[in-house]
């Protein structure tokens, strides 16, 4: 377990700010306690300071997880965001997509979002912007990347992809081992 180096912090924040923007500040400075990011076994964990100190007493081999895992750092220094970070991304998301009930299942099974399944989309979403995907009841389902800007979405035909799938809550069942 160790704190992140500067390059790792940069690549991590780059990725995260695609979805949350400057709200990362709210993650770092919280009124209810001091939280920090730690790297353990190539995964970045968001954990409260006192919990982190206690977790430091466990040997590296035996420590599996602490706090919330945001994602993993690859060997070349790139950061992959995982679904376990959704709890902290959903309230701070800058761009959102709402799915119709018919398309929810498709997305949760890992497929991309088509125009026919798109319920609402926030204004001013540019192309390839990070978006958080919700159901019509405002339940966060996962996140993805906008394939078309809001403007283009209006003129697109129903079979075109509107958002690329990145992670969804179905992964908790499908992809259990990879999530840690």
């Amino acid at each position, binding site marked *: *377990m*160790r*704190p992140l*180096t*500067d390059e790792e*912090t*940069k690549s991590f*924040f*780059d990725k995260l*700010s695609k979805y949350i923007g*400057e709200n*990362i*500040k709210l993650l*770092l*400075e919280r009124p209810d306690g*001091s939280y*920090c*990011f*730690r790297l353990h076994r190539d995964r970045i964990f968001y954990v409260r*300071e006192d919990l*982190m*100190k206690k977790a*430091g007493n466990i040997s590296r081999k035996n420590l599996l997880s602490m706090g919330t895992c945001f994602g993993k750092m690859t060997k070349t220094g790139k950061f992959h965001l995982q679904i376990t970070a959704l709890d902290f991304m959903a309230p701070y998301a800058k761009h959102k997509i709402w799915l119709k009930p018919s398309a929810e299942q498709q997305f949760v099974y890992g497929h991309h979002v088509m125009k026919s399944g798109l319920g609402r989309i926030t204004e*001013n979403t*540019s192309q390839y912007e990070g978006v958080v995907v919700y159901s019509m009841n405002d339940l966060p389902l996962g996140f993805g990347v906008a394939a078309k800007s809001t*403007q283009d979405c209006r003129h697109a035909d129903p079979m075109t992809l509107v958002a690329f799938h990145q992670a969804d809550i179905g992964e908790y069942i499908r992809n259990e081992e990879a999530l840690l």
Partner: protein
Amino acid sequence: MADLVERVLKEAAERESHYKTIEVHKDIELEIDPGNLLTVDTNPLDATKLKKNREEYLKSLARDNTQLLINTLWQLPTEKVDEAIVVKLPDPKTPIPREKPVPKDKALTKWQQYAQLKGIQKRKKSRMMWDDQSKEWKPRWGYKRGNDDTQEWCIEVPDNAEDPNVDLFAKKNKEKKERVAKNELQRLRNIARSQKSKVPGVGLTPTEAPSKDYLGKALALARKSTASIGKFTDKLPTEKPSKHTGKKRKFEPNYGDVERESKKQLKILNHIQNRIPIVNTTKAANRHIMEEQRSRARRRREEDGGKQKGGKNKGGGGKKKGGFKAGKKGKAGGKKR
């Protein structure tokens, strides 16, 4: 009775007549080396026979020479092994040259000299050893070995210890490292003694067939071996940074100042935010384009209106729904008109 003998002899004679005679006449005696199964025939070849029927002549020559060789072989002592007659060949007389020189005898290592002196025999030990503590067979050396004192989970501090606060685990690891280093040094010294060269304090011993890894290390060393310890050695255009040099990575301490850490992270965050421009350039550009097109359209309409109907303005430009969207629509509208 006499007929029978006569008949047998006649049959034998018939059989014999099929084969050529084993008597061969040669002007010059051949040099026969039964050890190498070699016959050297120095008789001159008959030119006329060679011209007339070459293959037949050469074949008969070969047959004759082989016959002579076999004759000499039959004269050697024979024995019968598993219903086959076997002849033991003598030592070869003709020397055949070696491809490579005769290898030198290796110099004995220090231990081998001592063992020879004391008459100590080498006793082979098996790989697996019964470990009473874990009640299973474990390797005697190497990975997952039994009886490994660096893997002890609990070491008692002895009563007569000088300093009870010394880290016994670290001490054991250090001792192991020292033993390994000592072994390595002694191995290098043995090599140096056998090659009559000196052991380098730091660096590499010379090898005959350097591997890729060895060459990499040698290159890294050569770059550093200057008076300014490699500070001014130029790099080749396609040279990659060496794996064998470089500082060991140092990380921030885990329980360091959380305040300082969060401040540093906020600074990095600000950097990232500053890179993204606050003004949306595409939006601004689109709005500018839309304005241009609208003004152009208005001018054109005024001209047309002036020419045709004389003053009836045909409505204003597109309603402004929103800067971003209108920009795109305005652009499309402009093209149509």
